[in-house]
């Protein structure tokens, strides 16, 4: 199932919603490792690290949001995974995992910029986020 990710609407959260009621400091953090591929199948690779001192089981990317910096005539669509959350597995303290997301940017100008917000979650209330601005496809 493809999901539009323009206009600041969360892609996912239909399943595997993690409660954020009592958030402590973020235990999970990450970054965008690479962007490869063609415009209609751009593969973004994310790396997530358990920066805490205890293991996190069931680490996952809860959702990905791409918000255009300016009004644009395109709406990026996630092709893979079909739905979120995107499982990352169990992460020992200090361990990392990578996950790929394939996005269709058809119709987006070369200079179309997006704000990126990735929500991370895991067992025991572990959480984190990746926030970036000024990102092209």
């Amino acid at each position, binding site marked *: 199932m493809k999901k539009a990710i323009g206009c600041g609407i969360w892609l996912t959260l239909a399943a595997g919603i993690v409660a954020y009621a009592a958030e402590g400091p973020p235990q999970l*953090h990450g970054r965008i490792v690479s962007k490869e591929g063609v415009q209609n199948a751009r593969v973004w690779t994310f790396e997530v690290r358990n920066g805490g001192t205890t293991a996190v089981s069931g680490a996952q990317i809860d959702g990905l949001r791409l918000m255009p910096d300016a009004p644009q005539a395109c709406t990026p669509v996630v092709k893979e995974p079909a739905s979120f959350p995107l499982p990352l597995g169990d992460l020992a303290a200090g361990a990392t995992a990578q996950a790929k997301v394939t996005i269709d940017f058809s119709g987006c100008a070369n200079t179309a910029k997006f704000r990126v917000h990735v929500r991370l979650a895991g067992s025991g209330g572990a959480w984190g986020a990746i926030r970036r601005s000024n990102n092209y496809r």
Partner: protein
Amino acid sequence: MKRTMHAVLAFLTIGAMAQAAPPTLDLLPAGAVAGPTGSTVGWGFTITNTTSGQWIEITSANLCSGTSGTSTACGDPGLGTFTDFISGYNDIIVGSSPNTTSVTQTFNSSTYQGIGSYLISAASGTTGPAQIVLTYNVYSVSPDDPNFDPDIDTVSVDNFLTASASVTVSTTQPPPGTPAPPSALLVVTGLGSAALYEIRKRRRGKRQPARA
């Protein structure tokens, strides 16, 4: 002849190293800033990128405790709230033409210029050693070039640029004429009311005849 060849090789090597110099970040006027609770402090910057054929674009900023924020999660320094100006309100691209190899911005909280602001909410304390952590993407063509194509011109993403920084809550007294804080006003009002009550009570006592 051999010596000349070595000299040429050394020159070329040094030249190549100079071209591949990583970008630099300097905070303005300095990394250590201070202000009283409730005030907003911040940092200006100079970012330099002299690498030929590479342009960098800033994509995030944060203030992280200690040396966190690159290989570990960004730790909250805990004295207030950081707001990202450099990528949240601006788009800074550093490189050769059509851009410039050095960009400088002084901090201005009204116009959202600089690295970012820090609203101090703690009554006292200091962050201790901390650092500004920027992320940036690298391109082989300037994003401001009409021929820019992110599909083929993206060199790398989410690189880090850091500079030492700290925030200290100062105990600077407010200047003369500054309204007193509400709590002090309440104390003064309370004491005044108590004194007034006591005076009236004494006067009333004098007026009333003694009971038989």
